[in-house]
């Protein structure tokens, strides 16, 4: 059984979606929770078409039913978790009737889904950015974990909470410690033992113990002057961050920007120095996938001109700043540094990655890797902690002036800002421009024809683009992607962030649509 919430995997994770669909065709149940009638709706037994940003009310209500009807997993809750009493107190406040008013799903459907979840085990909960890209993103994630613990769906194959990572190596970038609060392998900044270990390994006297800045704080710092130099490696921030005008103001405020990339992008315009990098298939290395699988990436052709592997560039800068790093290939970096320093990857060596790779934790040479976490209900922290949370609305909701909700995401034929897919022969033929996806009802109300050029406006900007009138989108919603610069959704999106993660609320802001030739 699957509960998919906030994930349009048919377009964003196409191959993963085929396996889920195969399972459904072989008899597995699928409950889809999504504001849009996306492709998975054709496969789902139940589609709860919740309103944008109402996830917690919906999930709390499922838990309310599970507890009220006493159909949750008592054994798992009693032996493997703490905090049930507090959770119960919180979720009992979310009766299906009360939650229905927030999320738009009928009380009957909420009860039906809760009963289905209780009746079928295990159930895998899959989520993507529909959960995290909200000002309550962290709480959304907590809610999914609360639900799965209450159902006892943790620590078993085909169970658990399964976040589908958006990018090929976003898991790996986290694993490697490209985060302001952890060293490689999630070893905490500020832990003196960890710090001492890395100081010794990296041959330095002192490593900083203060947690660093997250991207939005860095961008703020460019304006306030707290951050003077900004090193942007392989990111097109000027298109991907919410509220492009604000972002470009921030980038323009920097004293010194280094961009390291494979192409000039909207972001490199703000650079003072641009470094040409080798691309995928031009050097050897590893990616780590959503399922924590470390797989090999291999060189097939040479980088153009003077372009160099990224690791080499960082090494050269270090050298010029007085640090002579020994590792001289990706393999040496992994085998001699990463797997030596991070216990979770200790058993992963290039020599073991020839075939299907290894899933971490993989702690020693003979370790087969770990397919799923929290086996037998044993959590990393001991007992699973219920974290009761309240529903909060998006930072910006529809009103009289901006009566529609804009939600954003990805489409099948392109990837992010098209720096790559826009330069692949054929993909532009399959999708050549952005559209504003609107409902039949709203199109009728505003007398908008299919393909008509319309204006979409938010408090931050406006774009003109074709209307795509589709039953996928519910009344009151506009849906757009961020693949095309001119009509990029991020001219409109709201730079409001989850207070803990500083993830932006790409999934909800208020907009209005207008006919151009009214």
């Amino acid at each position, binding site marked *: 059984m699957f509960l998919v919430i906030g994930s349009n995997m048919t377009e964003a*994770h196409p*191959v993963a979606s085929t396996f889920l669909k*195969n399972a459904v065709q072989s008899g597995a149940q699928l409950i889809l929770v999504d504001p849009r009638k996306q492709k998975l709706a054709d496969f789902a037994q139940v589609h709860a078409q919740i309103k944008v940003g109402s996830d917690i009310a919906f999930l709390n209500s499922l838990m309310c039913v599970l507890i009220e009807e006493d159909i949750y997993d008592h054994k798992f809750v009693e032996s493997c978790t703490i905090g049930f009493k507090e959770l119960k107190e919180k979720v009992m406040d979310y009766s299906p009737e009360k939650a229905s008013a927030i999320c738009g799903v009928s009380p009957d459907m909420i009860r039906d889904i809760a009963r289905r979840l209780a009746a079928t085990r295990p159930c895998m909960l899959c989520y993507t950015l529909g959960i995290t890209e909200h000002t309550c993103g962290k709480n959304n994630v907590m809610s999914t974990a609360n639900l799965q613990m209450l159902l006892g769906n943790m620590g078993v194959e085909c169970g658990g909470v399964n976040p589908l990572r958006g*990018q*090929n*190596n*976003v898991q790996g970038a*986290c694993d*490697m410690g490209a*985060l*302001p609060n952890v060293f490689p392998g999630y070893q905490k*900044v500020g832990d003196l033992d960890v710090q001492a270990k*890395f100081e010794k390994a990296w041959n330095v006297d*002192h490593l*900083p113990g*203060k947690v*660093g800045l997250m991207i939005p704080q860095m961008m703020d710092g460019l304006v306030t002057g707290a*951050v003077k130099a900004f090193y942007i*490696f392989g990111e097109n*921030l000027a298109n*991907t961050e919410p509220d492009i005008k604000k972002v470009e103001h921030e980038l323009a405020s920097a*004293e010194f920007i280094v961009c390291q990339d*494979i192409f000039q992008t909207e972001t490199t315009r703000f650079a003072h*120095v*641009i*470094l*040409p990098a080798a*691309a*995928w*298939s031009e*050097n050897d*290395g*590893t*990616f780590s*996938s*959503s399922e924590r699988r470390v*797989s*090999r990436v291999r060189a097939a*052709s040479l980088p*153009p001109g*003077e372009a160099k592997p990224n*690791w080499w560039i*960082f*090494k050269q*800068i270090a050298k010029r*700043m007085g*640090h002579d790093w020994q590792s001289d290939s990706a393999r040496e*970096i*992994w085998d001699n540094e990463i797997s030596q320093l991070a216990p979770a990857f200790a058993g992963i060596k290039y020599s073991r990655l020839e075939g*299907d*790779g290894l899933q971490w934790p993989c702690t020693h040479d003979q370790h087969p890797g770990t397919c799923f976490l929290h086996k037998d209900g044993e959590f990393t922290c001991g007992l699973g902690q219920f974290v009761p949370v309240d529903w909060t609305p998006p930072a910006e909701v529809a009103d009289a002036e901006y009566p529609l909700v804009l939600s954003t995401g990805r489409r*099948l034929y392109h*990837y992010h800002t098209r720096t790559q897919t826009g330069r*692949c022969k054929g*993909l532009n*033929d*399959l999708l050549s421009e952005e559209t504003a996806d609107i409902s039949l009802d709203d199109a009728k109300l505003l007398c908008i024809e299919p393909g008509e050029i319309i204006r979409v406006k938010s408090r931050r900007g406006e774009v003109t683009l074709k209307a795509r009138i589709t039953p996928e989108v519910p009344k009151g919603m506009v849906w757009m992607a961020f693949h095309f610069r001119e009509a990029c959704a991020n001219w409109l999106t709201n730079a409001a962030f989850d207070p803990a*993660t*500083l*993830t932006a609320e790409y999934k909800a802001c208020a907009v209005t649509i207008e006919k151009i030739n009214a």
Partner: protein
Amino acid sequence: MNMVRLTIDDREIRASEGITILEAAKSAGITIPTLCYHERLNPIGSCRMCVVEVDGQSEPVTACTTPVADGFVIKTQSDRLYHLRQEALKRILVNHPLDCPVCDKAGACMLQDLTFEYNIQAVDCPAPKRNFIPSYQTTFIKHWPERCILCLRCANACKEVQCIGAIDVTDTDDGPQLTFNRDKCVSCGECVQICPVGGMLEKKSSYRWRSWETTKIRTTCPYCGVGCQQLLHVKNGRIVQVTGVEDAQPNKGRLCVKGRYGFDFIYSEDRLKTPLIKENGQFREATWDEALDLITRKFKEIIASHGPDAIAGVSCARSINEDSYNMQKLFRAVIGTNNIDHCART
């Protein structure tokens, strides 16, 4: 699982009840010729190449669709079977041009291999030319009805594997033909990968290659977080085709449209080829020494006057682990700040 005993080609074999003769033979290392059968699909049974003889049964059976039973005594090779397989191939070749020299699939074509193996020199009476419906194509894939052998691998793969169902068989005056639903098709190319002949081909690459000219390099897809395993087909240092690695975790041979056809951005003329330094609002080409010296000087100046926390960096969630590792190491160990992040929060 109950086990059964059977004999294949005079070898005693134990096999799980419910598996097919073909699977039992394979597990014992015995090869039975196939054409329409594919491990990732339910048995189709359209080509009759896998016929075998079972003692006590007057007619040969297809190994791909017949389950094993206790006591089966099976022969996979005999004069009769050889002849039947020849006949099966001739039935196919009546409607399949022997245009191997101009077919992209030559060298990787199962029909070509079987025709050779079964020593078919010519087909007595080629069928009159059929009137084919205009062939289906998208920007990436093209159906060649002349070469299609109607094995139905593609239609079943589209339905069973990709769950799309864009390919159907339609009866026409000229007999059954494949039809394609353009609205459903997403150009994932599963049909191309699974076609045993030159019936579904790629249009992507303007380069020409033969399968034996390419080196196959296994790698991981650069798009989403699924981590699909790809085989890069490389000729003269250039990727000409990408296929999914059969049997590999996690994708078991499958790819999506971007994974299969989104590889040539690396060859774009727009690629950055030298370091660039901005002077008077314009970028000029620079040497690595110039660029790295400038960066180092600026970083040192900023650290000296504002401290290391006045420098911040964003790593790349698209690039390899080792790149992110070195970047955070540069920030922590060399610059002296934890101001290192990436787009995990967006």
